């Protein structure tokens, strides 16, 4: 810490005194026409203005500032302000051909030469909503990016899928890259139907204020240079760096409040009968239901960050400190994060050598992150509680003392594995999720000649994590030992990456040539640590003391290692250009992967190629067209296979015996292969006021790595095969329009539209389907002709007239013998609509996101119906019966007793059909209103903003938020089983630049 303070004070020292003065001038086109509405911005700040009807501007600038002039349809310009007071500018018409974008490995490329789709989101856009996890802010801002936020509140994980699920057994998570270097994004435990917690992932640990921009490389085409890790696409994060000039200090501080947006519709007028735990009385009462609302609290998020940056021609530095203090909507849930980032670069040896380094330090602590699923989830007991009983007595006295033992235990009205006293759960099973993380990198870049450079990089990403929960004795007997139970897992996640690149660029007449060759080494070790798993039988020796000495012999202290992988690669890329109108891109990579050791397939090669034609350079196009290009690319990439499946060994059982490995060794394992091609075109019109980018892609995944149960008689219990074929194809369309562009008011709007069609074309020949998630209420499986994300539920038995068939004896609705296909959890298509208005000093931004098609499933609603606590069961009791189009024997039936009906369809394993909802929803995802002003004689720009997130639904079919995931694993998207309710966030933010 002392070192940091030292650095901090040096930086502060160099802030100096910043004199402010005014610069003015006129902006004209090359034809001499004044340009109206040109953006004039002091670089690195939010201070700026636009030119008036005469093309004139006037702006207050500090000493040694840089002014940026930008205007749609024209090439932007930057001018260093020395001591001039008048700066006149001439802007050149035409798209910025020289615009440089960051692609794989951090290599900068001219945007127009790219042969694949990529989309960049600026850091400022991500900050507008002030989500604690920047990934959640990506939603709707880029096409083809499916974001699912975990329902487990701050610090929870996020599921990101680019262009659909590509793997049956492996994962489809994209690769996350910081400044060209892969980072660890190891998602740990996820809740299931039966309960559990979200262990978070690596992304919540990044300070959003450090992000300069995020570029999404959606296809494997773009990512071929990352090899197998890039097979599912890449999210490139570029962090901020110091800029030449005097030190700048930016402070931003915000507070948002979080409230429930949508929770189940519960009844409070019918109680239980005869002391049951269900509320199926038919005698109407009037019970106080305020305890449900009272249980939740207003969540708050305080987000503060300060950054200091600056530099000279040789040395640049950036330092930031960020801090988040949040409390969730369930009591006792808190989240605290501290980030420190220091990034610097120095030029040496006659500016030929650039040495850069970056250190990111994070401390993240979540307490009592909300659970999902049945077990040890406060929401089950809260929602189920029989209406005629007195909740307050259980809330106020959630524990009772067992006088014989002198230990406390929970006070609840029933012994039931599904429910516990909610307040007991909140107070007597404290959970901690803690991460201390360091990402450090060093970059050396040596310019050998003007055309040839070599660079080497090294990165070490190390996280020490603790997941711990202490269950007090006397908790729910299904899960908790009479002396208390202890879940403890302390582990490290580690990623070491180094690479070396040789870059060569030259022009030969009309031809240009760019060559890159390189090698990389990467080692990841995830989940290396010590673990104790407690449950009803694996408890403590003496009550409520949570440490190793207090573990009885039947509780194992386990050494864990979840995965370990070394990957070595050689790769090369060549880009050949002709007259800046035709580009050909060739790349190849060879990987050596340790997870394939012993198979003879450790080494595998994959190529990719792409081509681009800039039509607007090749042909004379109508004047309305300012830019046009077409592109095509094709690539083949291997997808990783998991650790330790080739030849697993035996495990030591808690009993002291040895569990023989009964998985058949898989000695001819091959990498999964993803072959993808994409075709795209990009057009811009009317001086850049309107443009679109359209991509069609087709991704074929073969040699899927599939884990199968071995036939009982085979001598093994599991075996693996390489088989199957999945095709993802889809369209992505990005449209941007600037309908209004005047000095007073500008309005830019963009649409991100995408659709993905997933088909499991073929399975293993011996295998009709793979069950991937068989739980109560629903099942998911893959079968040829189906899609990943298909869910299966029990439906009503119906006759030829589509009437529900009732049991001849007791009249309950009958369900189908097998679960049947009920739809797919993924949407048919998605749309993000992003709007920005600027009106003088005011700015307004809002984003509308829509998901159309697909289904969502709620086990919560089914359980609430079965227990008679949902509003619909009460409404039906009010009405004297549930309306039904049914038949019993040969008698048509139009009403049915609600208890009979809902007990048959609801509860744990009833008839899922009524609980499958259309996923379609449209919502106002984000809203921000900002006001820019400045303090101290215009020396200090200040931005005040009112921000809101997830504000309301414009359209929603399901009774819960289908975009909130119980688990961020593949098969549990859009499933609800006592998830924490969806929330709306509103807040205020202030940003000051000194």
């Amino acid at each position: 810490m002392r070192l940091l303070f030292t650095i901090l004070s040096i930086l502060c020292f160099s802030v100096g005194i910043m004199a402010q003065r005014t610069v003015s001038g006129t902006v004209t086109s090359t034809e001499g026409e004044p340009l109206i509405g040109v953006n004039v911005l002091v670089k690195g700040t939010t201070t700026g203005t636009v030119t008036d009807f005469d093309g004139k501007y006037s702006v207050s600038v500090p000493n040694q500032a840089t002014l940026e002039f930008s205007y749609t349809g024209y090439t932007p310009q930057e001018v260093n302000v020395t001591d001039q007071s008048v700066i006149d500018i001439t802007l050149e018409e035409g798209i910025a051909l020289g615009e440089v974008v960051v692609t794989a490995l951090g290599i900068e490329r001219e945007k127009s030469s790219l042969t694949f789709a990529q989309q960049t989101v600026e850091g400022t856009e991500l900050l507008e909503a002030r989500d604690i996890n920047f990934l959640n802010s990506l939603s709707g801002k880029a096409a083809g990016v499916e974001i699912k936020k975990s329902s487990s509140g701050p610090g929870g994980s996020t599921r990101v899928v680019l262009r659909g699920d590509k793997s049956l057994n492996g994962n489809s998570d994209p690769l996350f890259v910081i400044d060209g270097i892969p980072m660890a994004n190891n998602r740990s435990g996820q809740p299931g139907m039966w309960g559990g917690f979200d262990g978070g992932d690596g992304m919540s640990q990044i300070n959003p204020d450090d992000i300069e921009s995020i570029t999404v490389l959606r296809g494997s085409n773009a990512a071929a240079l990352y090899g197998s890790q890039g097979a599912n696409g890449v999210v490139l994060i570029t962090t901020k760096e110091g800029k030449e000039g005097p030190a700048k200090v930016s402070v931003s501080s915000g507070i948002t409040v979080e409230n429930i947006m949508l929770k189940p519709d519960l009844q409070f007028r019918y109680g239980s009968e005869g002391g049951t735990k269900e509320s199926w009385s038919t005698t109407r009462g009037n019970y106080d239901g305020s305890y449900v609302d009272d249980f939740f609290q207003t969540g708050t998020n305080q987000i503060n960050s300060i950054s200091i940056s600056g530099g000279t021609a040789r040395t640049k530095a950036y330092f930031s400190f960020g801090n988040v203090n949040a409390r969730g909507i369930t009591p006792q849930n808190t989240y605290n994060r501290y980030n420190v980032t220091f990034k610097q670069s120095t030029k040496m040896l006659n500016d030929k050598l650039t040495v850069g380094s970056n250190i990111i330090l994070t401390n993240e602590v979540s307490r009592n992150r909300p659970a999902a699923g049945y077990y040890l989830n406060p929401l089950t007991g809260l929602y189920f509680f029989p209406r005629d009983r007195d909740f307050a007595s259980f809330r106020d006295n959630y524990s009772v003392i067992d006088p014989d033992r002198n230990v406390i235990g929970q006070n609840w009205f029933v012994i039931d594995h599904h429910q516990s006293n909610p307040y007991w759960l909140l107070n007597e099973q404290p959970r901690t999720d803690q991460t201390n993380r360091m990402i450090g990198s060093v970059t050396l870049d040596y310019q050998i000649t003007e055309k040839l450079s070599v660079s080497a990089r090294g990165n070490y990403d190390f996280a020490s994590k603790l997941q711990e929960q202490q269950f007090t004795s006397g908790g729910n007997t299904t899960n908790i030992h009479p002396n208390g139970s202890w879940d403890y897992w302390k582990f490290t996640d580690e990623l070491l990456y180094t690479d070396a690149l040789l870059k060569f660029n030259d022009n030969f007449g009309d031809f240009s040539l760019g060559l890159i060759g390189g090698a990389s080494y990467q080692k990841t070790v995830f989940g290396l640590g010590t673990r104790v798993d407690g449950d009803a039988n694996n408890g403590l020796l003496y009550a409520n003391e949570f440490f190793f000495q207090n573990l009885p012999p039947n509780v194992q202290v386990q050494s864990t290692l979840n995965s370990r992988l070394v990957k070595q690669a050689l790769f090369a890329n060549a880009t050949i250009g002709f007259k800046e109108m035709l580009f050909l891109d060739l790349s190849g990579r060879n990987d050596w992967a340790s997870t394939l050791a012993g198979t003879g397939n450790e080494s595998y090669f994959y190529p990719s190629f792409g081509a681009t034609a800039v039509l607007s350079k090749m042909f004379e196009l109508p004047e309305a067209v300012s830019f046009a290009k077409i592109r095509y690319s094709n690539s083949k990439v291997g997808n990783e296979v998991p650790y330790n499946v080739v030849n697993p060994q035996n495990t030591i059982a808690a009993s002291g015996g040895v569990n023989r490995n009964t998985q058949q060794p898989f000695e001819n394992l091959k990498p999964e292969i993803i072959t993808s091609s994409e075709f795209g075109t990009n057009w811009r019109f009317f001086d850049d006021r309107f443009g679109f980018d359209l991509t069609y892609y087709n991704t074929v995944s073969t040699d899927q790595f599939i884990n199968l149960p071995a036939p009982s008689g085979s001598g093994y219990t599991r075996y693996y095969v390489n088989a199957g074929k999945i095709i993802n194809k889809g369209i992505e369309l990005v449209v941007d329009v600037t309908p209004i562009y005047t000095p007073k008011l500008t309005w830019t709007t963009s649409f991100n539209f995408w659709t993905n069609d997933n088909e499991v074309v073929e399975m293993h020949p011996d295998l009709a389907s793979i069950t991937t998630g068989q739980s109560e209420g629903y099942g998911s499986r893959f079968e040829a002709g189906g899609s990943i994300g298909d869910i299966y539920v029990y439906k009503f038995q119906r006759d030829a007239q589509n009437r529900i068939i009732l049991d001849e004896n007791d009249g309950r609705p009958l369900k189908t013998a097998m679960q049947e296909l009920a739809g797919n959890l993924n949407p048919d298509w998605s749309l993000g609509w992003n709007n920005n208005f600027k009106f003088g000093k005011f700015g307004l931004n809002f984003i509308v996101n829509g998901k159309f098609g697909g289904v969502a499933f709620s086990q919560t609603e089914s359980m609430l119906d079965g227990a008679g606590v949902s509003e619909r069961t009460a409404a039906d009791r009010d009405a004297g019966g549930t309306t039904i189009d049914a038949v019993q024997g040969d008698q048509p039936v139009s009403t049915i007793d609600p208890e009979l009906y809902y007990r048959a369809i609801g509860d744990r394993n009833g008839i899922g059909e009524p609980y499958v909802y259309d996923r379609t929803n449209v919502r106002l995802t984000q809203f921000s209103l900002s006001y820019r002003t400045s303090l101290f004689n215009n020396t200090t720009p200040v931005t005040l903003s009112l921000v809101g997130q997830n504000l309301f639904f414009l359209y929603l079919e399901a009774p819960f938020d289908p975009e909130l995931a119980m688990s961020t694993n593949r098969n549990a998207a859009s499933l609800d089983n006592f998830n924490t309710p969806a929330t709306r966030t509103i807040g205020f933010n202030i940003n000051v630049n000194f």
Partner: protein
Amino acid sequence: MKKLSILKYLFVLTLFAGCTDDFADLNTNPYQISDESLRQDNNHVGAFFPTMLNNIFGDQIEHNLANESFVRHLGTPTPFVGGVNNTTYYIRWNSYWGRVYGSIFAPARQVLQIAEAENNEVFVAWAKLLRVLAASRLSAYHGPIIYSNYGSTDKVILYDSEPELYNTWFAELDEIVAAFSRNTEFGGMAKFDDSFQGDIGAWIKLANSMRLQLAMRISKVNPSLAKTQGEKAIADPGGLISTTEDNFYIRNYDGFFRPARICFGWGDTRMSATMESVLGGYKDPRVSKYFDPATDNTLYPDHPDFPYKGIRNGAELVAKDDRLAYSTIASAFQTWPARRCFTSSETHFLLAEAALRDWAGAGTAMDHYETGVRESFAEWGAGGVDAYLQDDTSLPLDYDDPKASGDVNDFVSRIKVPVKWDEGEDKEVKLEKIMTQKWLAAVHNTIEIWVDHRRTGYPKLPYNYKNDSNADWGVIPDDDFLRRMPFVNGERNNNPEGVADATQKLGGPDEIGTRLWWDTGGPNF
């Protein structure tokens, strides 16, 4: 010059990228234990026995919600899956099969391969004995099972018919007893044997007792083979499990007694109504060893001096908490160290039946009947056995379910025999007494009494009150019992031809009403 240095650089890169020697180590989990390491201390064969033993018994869905309910030992208060489940003859869970193959057959196969290659005949015999033990219990569920073709690489794996299975088991028991007898001084098992601490003589007694048990199973369907094998078991110099010191227990390797977890941890099991009826009617002193009194004293107005209440099997249940106050299993089971798997009382009841069937060397039925009861009392530490054996008037009680209205869940006891032996009665009555006492002694080890009940019809248990059987899994008439468990879904899907062939061997549809081979439905004598 420059070009050369670049080439050199690339060359170095290639070298470092090409170094993959440690890949196999990297891809191996250091916290697993290799076969090579296990060679130390004979662990490569021995260390798998605890795990195999630990899986001889299943858990809630394999026993408590299956055979333990079918034989009316324990009853569940929980209306699982809307009250329509195994206990009401609609199959929801059928997983003992998976446990036996996954956790016993798969490791046993590898142990056998290693032990056979090393000519380690004691471990071969031991693994085979556990395989016979597990398979004979599994076959009691399904009938034909995969046995001789286990480990085949064929796509279709055929099941063994029941006659084949019993012949194979008898032959294997011959080999096992012979191998054990040649090595009675071998000490290598002790480290892995929590049941008998490596006492090979004790394992021989178990093998002989199992032979007697399996012989009795087929006493009606193949009387001559049954007699031959039964007499062989009785005559073997190695002896039978005949006193409590010989009893075969399996340690709770999980660290807990599974029925106690189901009862106390999950609140999913209680005393059965039939246990209430029989223990209460016979004034059986073992009741306090088996069960705790009900915690609500309003539950048993019909027998206030006998403070126990059980749940009817196949009952009409509304809410789980209705019957949580009924009698739990005895609290002492929460710290019970081991599961009884074959005990001396069972041997004596087998010998009593053998005597009725005139098997040579069996002794007299009365002696073994009374010794069986005495051994059971001794095993549980219950007093009063002399008076108990002399009681010729007490009969099991009729049952009333206080939590269900009217006569819902109630039954009239069909057991009309008292405890006291009467040498003058006919064989059928004697058999009923033997079976009733065998049933009472079999607490927490209920597979064999499920076999006996199907084979002999005794004890005269109450039928299901609620019978949800239908065409899906086969129909059980209201005055009959479930006869078997169907073949498992995994096999129906993955090995359909094997299942079709097994259904042929079964001799009837793959349904729960189809009788197994030894369940002839004919007269007992």
